């Protein structure tokens, strides 16, 4: 249905050969990019086609140590060639320096072991202290103390392997559902979930079921909040409603969830460039129309607006290919050495956000 609409719009905007307006070209570019993206990476819907996804999981301290040794052993030969120039150390002094470095790395490992233990204990304690116990009013009272909350929240989740606790697709859906419930309880109306491989995009039915179950557990069966799941990259949207059936999606949902993955990042910008270059070759888009505002509008349509807060449920700060255009002024939050989705991290992120002051340029 939406495809038909799109093609008619497309023809409509193409027909005025030279006297095109800015809005018309805007629409045109958007439609073309959407189409290209759908052609390029159609997501397989049947179960057999789902590829196993390599897990982005936490290594234990000992595997890290093992890697350390392995890397140190191999790095000797690699880095030796790099020290060019007049004051570069000779081979003998290089080995002396390198053995000092190895020694320091060992000390660092010991230090990190204590730091890791400390951080984990702190998180354990925080998780005990802040427990939502599936009660929206508790979350609400926690959040109500804050002077401001984000309007758009984004979370970076990681797929964990099936063997791990709370791993696999089910674990991911569970985390996403839990976050949705927390967002709803704290009154955040826009929520986007970024997962590098886009596992959630291919498992929407599971996600909907899981969200529904979670919302029932939080809000009770009588007033389950409505939600909308959007996949901007495929231009799909699913209305979530009572008993997980497809509603008609007429009225505004309580929360909008959009699913992002690495394709929404740099590849979308590349795709946009391709389309614009094609259009400018065909003289359908003049060069002076291409400016920051134009690209911003296109990317807002293709990916969504910029989030106010990005919470990363990972042990260290790394954006993992998150849409670059959309990280401009977003506050980022993560807890060192944390690798699970927990309410304490969520709340602390909101607390941190409420204290930050954005002053563009000033």
């Amino acid at each position, binding site marked *: 249905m939406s495809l038909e609409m799109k093609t008619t719009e497309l023809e409509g905007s193409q027909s005025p050969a030279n006297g095109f307006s800015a809005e018309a070209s805007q629409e045109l570019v958007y439609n073309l990019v959407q189409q290209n993206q759908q052609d390029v990476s159609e997501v397989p819907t049947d179960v057999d086609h789902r*590829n196993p*996804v*390599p*897990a*982005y999981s936490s*290594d234990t301290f000992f595997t*890290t140590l093992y*890697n*350390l040794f392995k*890397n*140190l052993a191999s*790095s000797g030969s690699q*880095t030796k060639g790099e020290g060019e*120039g007049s004051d570069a*150390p000779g081979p003998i*002094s290089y080995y002396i*320096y*390198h053995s*000092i*470095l190895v020694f*320091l*790395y060992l000390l*660092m490992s010991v230090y990190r072991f204590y730091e890791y233990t400390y951080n984990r204990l702190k998180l354990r304690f925080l998780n005990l202290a802040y427990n939502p116990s599936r009660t929206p009013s508790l979350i609400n009272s926690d959040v109500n103390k804050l002077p401001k909350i984000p309007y758009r929240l984004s979370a970076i989740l990681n797929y964990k392997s099936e063997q791990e606790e709370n791993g696999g697709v089910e674990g991911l859906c569970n985390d996403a559902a839990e976050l949705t419930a927390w967002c709803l309880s704290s009154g955040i109306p826009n929520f986007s979930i970024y997962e*590098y*491989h886009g596992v959630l995009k291919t498992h929407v039915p599971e996600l909907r079921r899981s969200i529904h179950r979670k919302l029932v557990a939080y809000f009770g069966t009588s007033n389950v909040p409505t939600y909308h799941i959007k996949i901007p990259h495929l231009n799909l949207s699913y209305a979530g409603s009572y008993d997980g059936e497809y509603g008609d999606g007429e009225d505004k949902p309580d929360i909008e969830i959009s699913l992002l993955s*690495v394709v929404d990042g*740099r590849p979308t*910008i590349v795709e946009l*460039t*391709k*389309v*614009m*270059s*094609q259009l*400018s070759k065909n003289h359908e888009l003049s*060069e002076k129309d*291409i*400016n*920051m505002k134009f*690209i911003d509008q296109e990317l807002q349509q293709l990916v969504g607006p910029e989030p106010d807060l990005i919470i990363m449920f990972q042990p*260290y*700060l*790394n*954006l993992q*290919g998150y*849409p*670059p*255009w959309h*990280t*401009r*002024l*977003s*506050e*980022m*939050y993560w807890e060192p050495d944390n690798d699970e989705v927990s309410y304490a991290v969520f709340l602390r992120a909101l607390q*941190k956000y409420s204290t*930050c002051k*954005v002053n563009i*340029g*000033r």
Partner: protein
Amino acid sequence: MDWIASFPVTRHVLEYTKKQLCQVLRSGSVPQHVGFIMDGNRRYARMNKMETKEGHSAGFDTMARLLEVCYDCGVQAATVFAFSIENFSRSEYEIEWLMKLAKSKMKQVVENGELCHKYGVKIRILGNLKLLPADVRESLLEAQEMTKNNERAVLNICCPYTARDDITHSIKNIIARGYDPEDITQDLVSEHLYTGGVPKLQLLIRTSGVYRLSDFMLWETVDVDCDVEILSVLWPQFTPLLMLWILFKWGWNRTGRARRNKRLLENHGKDD
């Protein structure tokens, strides 16, 4: 403790130790490209009851010291966020002072450019230069021209720069050059950014405890290979020793995280 600092040999010993530590770090893995968001000059000035412009001067000195450490450790390229396009909304007096500072420091760098000669630093000015006053632009470009034959390290000065402007500029350039749409890839966009031709960004450092990228090198920073380090100190309080610690920590982390990041990227080809 004061008598130690004032003891004649102390400075030399410290200097020597620093150099040796740099050599030690150099023997391991070091980020090829480091980005700096120099935040907190004004707050530093306010805290120390200085004028804003003195804070900026202190910030410049810090930058010179840190860059020395970086190049000693074998960092190939450093990019500093000197002035954002958004900064034009600051008070006129401050902008004027910043421009004057940039001009005078560039002159200094060019005339008795210790940093440039010793490390063979090539200075590149990145950003939308059209927005700068003509005299400042000229002196910046002069510095770029004079150091263009240096090969060993690169210093990118972003002035006036925003990442969105950078991406837009890259896209416009690609379209203007009329590439075949099939040939447009992520690498092509990366090459046409202001930072094109410089090694990939592997570490971004932001000071003064702000957890935001503030429109600096967004395209480069979202890469899986790039780590972001956020420090709670203000920029002028950023000591070379802290820089050494960060580089050391980066090297240590790299050994553990390399495999993890590789695993994350394994599926990359399929997703594109």
